[in-house]
């Protein structure tokens, strides 16, 4: 089972990401109606889902573009380093947005459970960690590109 190429697992993962993107768009567009249907008050805490969702959509799009390079068997390109850096910043932004949501849930509204607040804290740390991991990966890819160039120009 290989990652690269037309019939690689990368293609399947890309399709899964595209489906995730579509579901995210539908969820964001229908969030107001879903919240009303469940009977939850449409407050500032719920509104925070929109910027988080948009950032997450951007993140998914970056990953889709990276998987496109796997399809063409050229993963070690500067574009992928750029997408990883963009994804890293997006993860940090999501982390900050989730912290803001946590502060809103704790300070502004009393009725949100402790479990939700703990979960938000965990999600924030998780996205921060993913951002750091993407930074390390981008640096590794940069080095790999240098080595590949060296190898390609070795006759």
């Amino acid at each position, binding site marked *: 089972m290989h990652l690269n190429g037309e019939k690689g697992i990368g293609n399947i993962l890309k399709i899964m990401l595209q489906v995730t993107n579509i579901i995210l768009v539908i969820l964001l567009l229908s969030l107001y109606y879903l919240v009303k249907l469940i009977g939850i008050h449409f407050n500032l805490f719920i509104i925070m889902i929109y910027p988080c969702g948009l950032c997450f959509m951007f993140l998914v799009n970056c990953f889709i573009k990276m998987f496109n390079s796997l399809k063409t068997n050229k993963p070690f390109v500067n574009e992928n380093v750029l997408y990883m850096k963009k994804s890293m910043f997006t993860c940090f932004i999501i982390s900050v947005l989730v912290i803001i949501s946590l502060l809103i849930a704790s300070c502004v509204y009393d009725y949100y459970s402790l479990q939700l607040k703990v979960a938000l804290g965990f999600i924030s740390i998780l996205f921060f960690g993913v951002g750091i991991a993407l930074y390390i990966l981008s640096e590794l890819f940069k080095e790999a590109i240098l080595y590949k160039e*060296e190898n390609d*120009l*070795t*006759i």
Partner: protein
Amino acid sequence: MGIIVNLDVMMAKRKISSQDLAEKIGITQANLSILKNNKGKAIRFKTLTKICELLECTPGDILEYRKEDKK
């Protein structure tokens, strides 16, 4: 400057074309062009041996060192 590849000179002396030489060495014409135009980063000993065999020369006939001008 650094290492200069003088393959053109030896190829002209032995009257061999790029296509023939590339075929006999076992590399693509594109790679041979990279070598001739000093765009290569390194050359394998295997490749250098084949070039010397085919052109009946020594590495010194093909490779030349020129000091870099530090201005």
